[in-house]
């Protein structure tokens, strides 16, 4: 379970201060699927970065599974991300020199899982996203939709509690976008993984139970 209370994030840009988030409070219950919407520069990615423990909020409380995140060391944060959080990015961010299988194995490397077990688990995840026949392909040999599915398999491989997706369909055509959203919904339903998706697409937002709207770093209203 995720609980954010009065989260603010201020970036220092030389003399100037940028308030990317102001007093944001929200809660994601186990098994919940939420969407975050808002204009460009409204702080969506910042919110996701804080949720995903990529950054520490300037002020406010963030409890991840009842643990206060800002008290953790950098190594503990790495461990937390590794074990409990999966990320999906708009630009896929697959490692170009690695095959699909090797890309999915990556989080397991940091968990010191042995090679054989790593391959086995990565293969199973790729099969789950429908890419069982593409495991040896390099990212450049895959379509955008396929690459994003590899990225989802990578997010999935460590059985996370939370998957964060920053505009996962932003670079995809509508069919591929549908597929990606289908897979995410399925994961949410089958495995009760919490999912937070940043999106501009109202069709996608319609599929989820809860939509948060951000404007100038503030939560505007909680629709639905």
């Amino acid at each position, binding site marked *: 379970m995720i609980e954010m209370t009065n989260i603010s994030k201020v970036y220092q840009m030389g003399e100037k201060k940028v308030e990317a988030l102001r007093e944001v409070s929200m809660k994601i219950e186990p098994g919940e699927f939420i969407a975050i919407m808002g204009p460009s520069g409204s702080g969506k990615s910042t919110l996701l*970065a804080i949720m995903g423990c990529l950054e520490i909020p300037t002020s406010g409380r963030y409890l991840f599974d009842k643990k206060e995140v800002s008290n953790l060391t950098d190594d503990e944060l790495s*461990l937390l991300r590794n074990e409990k959080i999966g990320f999906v990015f708009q630009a896929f*961010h697959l490692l170009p020199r690695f095959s699909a299988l090797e890309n999915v194995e990556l989080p397991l490397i940091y968990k010191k899982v042995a090679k054989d077990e790593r391959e086995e688990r990565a293969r199973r995840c790729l099969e789950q996203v429908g890419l069982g026949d593409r495991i040896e392909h390099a990212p450049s040999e895959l379509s955008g939709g396929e690459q994003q599915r590899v990225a989802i398999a990578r997010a999935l491989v460590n059985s996370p509690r939370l998957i964060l997706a920053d505009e996962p369909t932003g670079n995809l055509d509508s069919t591929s976008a549908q597929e990606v959203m289908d897979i995410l919904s399925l994961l949410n339903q089958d495995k009760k993984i919490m999912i937070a998706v940043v999106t501009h697409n109202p069709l996608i937002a319609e599929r989820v139970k809860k939509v948060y709207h951000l404007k100038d770093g503030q939560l505007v209203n909680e629709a639905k």
Partner: protein
Amino acid sequence: MRLSDYLYLAKKDLTNYRLRSSLIILCICVGILSSTLNLYHTSKRAEELISSLENLGGQMISIWVQDKEIQLEDLFFLSSYFPYTSYEVSYWQDIRSFRKTKISVSIIATVPEYQQVHSVKIKEGRFISLGDINQRRKVCVVNTPVASGLKIGVGKKIRIGEDELRVIGLSKEEGMSKRVIIPLSISNEIFESDSRNLEVVILTSGNPKAVKKEIERMLKKRFSDKKGRTRQGFLFESEGFTVSIAEGLLETIKNQRLTSKMIVLGIWVVTLILAGGGIINLIMLSVRQRYKEIGVMRAYGAKKEEIFYLFLLEGILLSVYGLLLAGAIGASYVGLFGGCKFLIFLRELLWSSIICIGIGICGCFPARLAAGISPSEAIRDAN
């Protein structure tokens, strides 16, 4: 992260920059190779010289006879104490070949032991023998500078004043000094003036300082009746002798080692600048191009230190490849042309691999840069 996974990830990245990586490996290889072979050659030479010295006994102690009344014959008793004792009368004089070429040489009249004491290598013919001494044969051994100066060889004759001497041997010697060696027994006939230099050189395996003391004691005892000509300086007590520990050969070896070390130091510096700079450049480039990737790795749980070690390892891998290549090339060279002293080679290779440590340190800078990349880079893309 497991060590095998570090290697796996680092290798993957290096193959991505194949050309640059190969150039750096080559640069490291050349640096290590030239340093190793340089050290190898001087060490091998030094070892050979030292072992030839040790085989014969070790340190040279020379006795200069300053007293005009003392003859070399008065010192022959030393041979019964020291088997490797060379008696030498030396003298500067012009010599001629039959073609009337004239050169100025130092002539040394001596005994067969001279060869062992000074480790003279004979290139052709033979050295002065006991027979030559006993029969007072008019023969001589010349060194390479003399032979080439007079354009003569073994079997030819040279003229010293009115005397004709047959060349029986050609010695291989370092340096430029022209030297003609003749039997001690004919020195009185050959030498014209008596401004000559008498010297006894003893090769000893004992502690040189103790042996020197011992010799001084013997000389004092023997010549105690000849007193009264005390001069300041080198003269030992009142007798006309100077006993000194000759540093010649060992000093040369030390000097050679020093020059070799200076050269090697230069090679190290150049290699470090080239290869170290190359590695910093390569890894820097790789870090810049992979800002996002490193962010993604961090997002997926890579710790700061894991990123640091990964990039450090890339630099280390390059040096290790360079070292292995240098080892392989160097070993085959040593095996084929270099005299097969593999132990010395290995030792010098080990020394030269110090370069790798320096290069590893160079790799720390870009590795630190990489480790400092924030995990949120992953999510901050240019959309």
